């Protein structure tokens, strides 16, 4: 899902390339996973830096100074905004 809203692009986290910083907009997950993600600091509004994304396999992100590795399936549930430079 790639919608262009003004200058900013809304996409899912798995599509963000390495080194980019994005803002989390929303999470589409069931109660349990949602609660875990929120409590780990993946709160809408948080800045997420994508440290590793090889287009396959696990992603590594940094959020609130913490490195977290997440599988691609979970990354697909995170809607983010890519700020244009």
């Amino acid at each position: 899902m790639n919608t262009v809203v003004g200058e900013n692009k809304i996409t899912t986290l798995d599509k963000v390339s390495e080194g980019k910083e994005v803002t989390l907009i929303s999470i589409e997950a069931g109660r349990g996973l949602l609660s875990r993600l929120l409590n780990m600091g993946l709160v809408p509004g948080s800045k997420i830096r994508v440290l590793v994304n090889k287009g396959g396999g696990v992603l590594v992100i940094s959020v609130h100074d913490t490195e977290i590795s997440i599988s691609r399936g979970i990354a697909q549930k995170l809607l983010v905004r890519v700020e244009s430079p």
Partner: protein
Amino acid sequence: MKRITVALIGQPNVGKSTLFNALTGGNAIVTNWPGTTVSKSEGVIRHCQYEIHIIDLPGVYGLTAFTIEEKISRNFIVNEKPDVVVVLVDSLSLIRTLYLALDVLELIDRVVIGVTKVDEAHSRGVHINYNLLEKQLGVPVVPLSAVRGDGLRELAERIISVYEAGRREHTKVDYGELSTYIESAEALIRQCDLGLSHRWLAVKVFEGDPETLELIKSRCTSLYEDLVELREEASRILKVDPAVIVARSRFKHAESIGKTCVIQVAVRKKAPSKLFYHPVYAPLISIAIILAVFTLAFNLNTGFPVASILESVGFSELAEAIENYTISSLIERFLEWSSSTLKGLLGENAISLFLSEAVLGGVGALLLFLPLIMTVLATIGVLEDTGLLTRLAVGVHTLFEKLGFSGHALFPLSLSLGCNVPGLLVARAIPSTAERVRLIMLLPFIPCQARLVVLLALATAVRQGFLLVVLSYIVAFAAFFALGFALYKWSTMRSESVEIRLLLEQPPLHKPIPRVVWWYTWWHTKHFLVKAGTIIVLANILFWLLSHVGPSMSFTDDPGESIAASFSKTLTPILKPIGISGEGSWIIALALIAGFIAKEIFISTLLTVTGASSVKNAFTTIGVSEQSVIALTIFVTLYVPCLAALSTIYSETRSLKLVAEAVLLMLVVAYTSAILAYTLALVLTL
């Protein structure tokens, strides 16, 4: 002496276990949380006129409870009403870890905040204004370094002063657009006093905390519908899940505190070591590291594989020298000596035999395995403490994923190489229930140290012993992964199974801290002692009695006359397909029964009953061919590890059906593999 009960809570990786150990000096009492197998550690410190009882709660990210660990921590704080709650936050990621602290501060009066790892904060350019933090949070804040022992005394003093001081206002987080809804919910909850902060309960309703909703449903039934209605209304009108608003507001609050109290001086941040995340290298590096460290640990324990390799290329003297100084042979010699000393002191009679063989044998088995398991635990401790373990989990995830497991499975798998019992216990942390059940069914296939010792003993009876042991490990892992894959496919076909997920915090990498590694090792060892230890000792005694009491209930020192023997004799036809038949074949059956109870008595049974001095001689006496020994070795690798493992499967799943299925699976797989191995061995040696 006044007694103060303190709950210690913190997010995973904040350094809670390390601090708990530093506080209690490792003298903790380990039990289980009632109705669960999650272990509970309790320690006591004395300070001035106070006896401070510290209860270590499972690490959780928040008080909203979906998992077993979260339920335990939440319910302890909510229902058991500890006198003081100590919340740990990490100086290296203060904002994120303050999140849990705020959740607690909204509920509890008497709180002390401990800021951990301050020894490292400076070098990372983090400077925290503790006085200001204290003012903003309204509760005492203590900077701590568990590895240096800083702040421990002050923590005790602050706990006491908070205990003696009166109540304080609960912290109020501004929930923005949700505030009016929270206030309405608060007003409703006030009508039905539950003895807890109304505001906190209201917030938990909006977070969808299952425990809070359950509590309100059962105790304030009339309000339940209204509250759920209110929640839905908020969700409808605000167009956002209220749980998200709560989390966001709490984070904002934490961030605003962080902004005023923390100064982050720019220091060159180490780039994350991408090597561990490389799609091609990472799995290779991970597997190489895992193989290397475990080979080292195994070698220290038993001399396998280095001594065996030396032996097979002709350096038998060197191999023998290594084997003589492995941990297992040192302990074995000690045990032999004490058993013969005991017999010498008491003479040969039923009592001395019982003491030296049944009791000392059981305790000895435990003594023998304790250091072996500790080496494996220490190895994992190093991996865990340095932060490597979670990287390795990511490294293997991509491979495991194809086989139906996630990278989370690495922890239980590697522990199982030491002992299946702790391996089965940590499988609890697997987020997906389906994957967890799969793991619990299959972990027993992973050869533990007890099995390694038995395998090595069996290997002495064949020409290519080293290869046989390697083959056994390969077969075991192949069985584990093949069956895992089959079960995974089967459950996706029934469309039960969800995607394989990985969600892991990656703590910063650092050099191992010996004290922390030791605490980790000791903590898990205690578990092994409590859980597996009792069963091993009792099982040994039971088996000894069965093999020394005849059908007429009288003592016999000829095991051939015992109850166990007459039962084994009925089992012998089963051994035919692997080429074991004739007079003495019941001895093998008896040894296998022994091995069902605890693997290590397999060998001692074989030796005592045949009266042989070595495993090789024992097999010659019974008339077991080399091919049959190979088949037997494969069988021993794969069939039920021990009673302790079975009882753990039961306690973890509370399902006798699952235990029965697991046992059946193991027996079927072991038996067919053994027959296959026998046939192959026959073909190859013809």
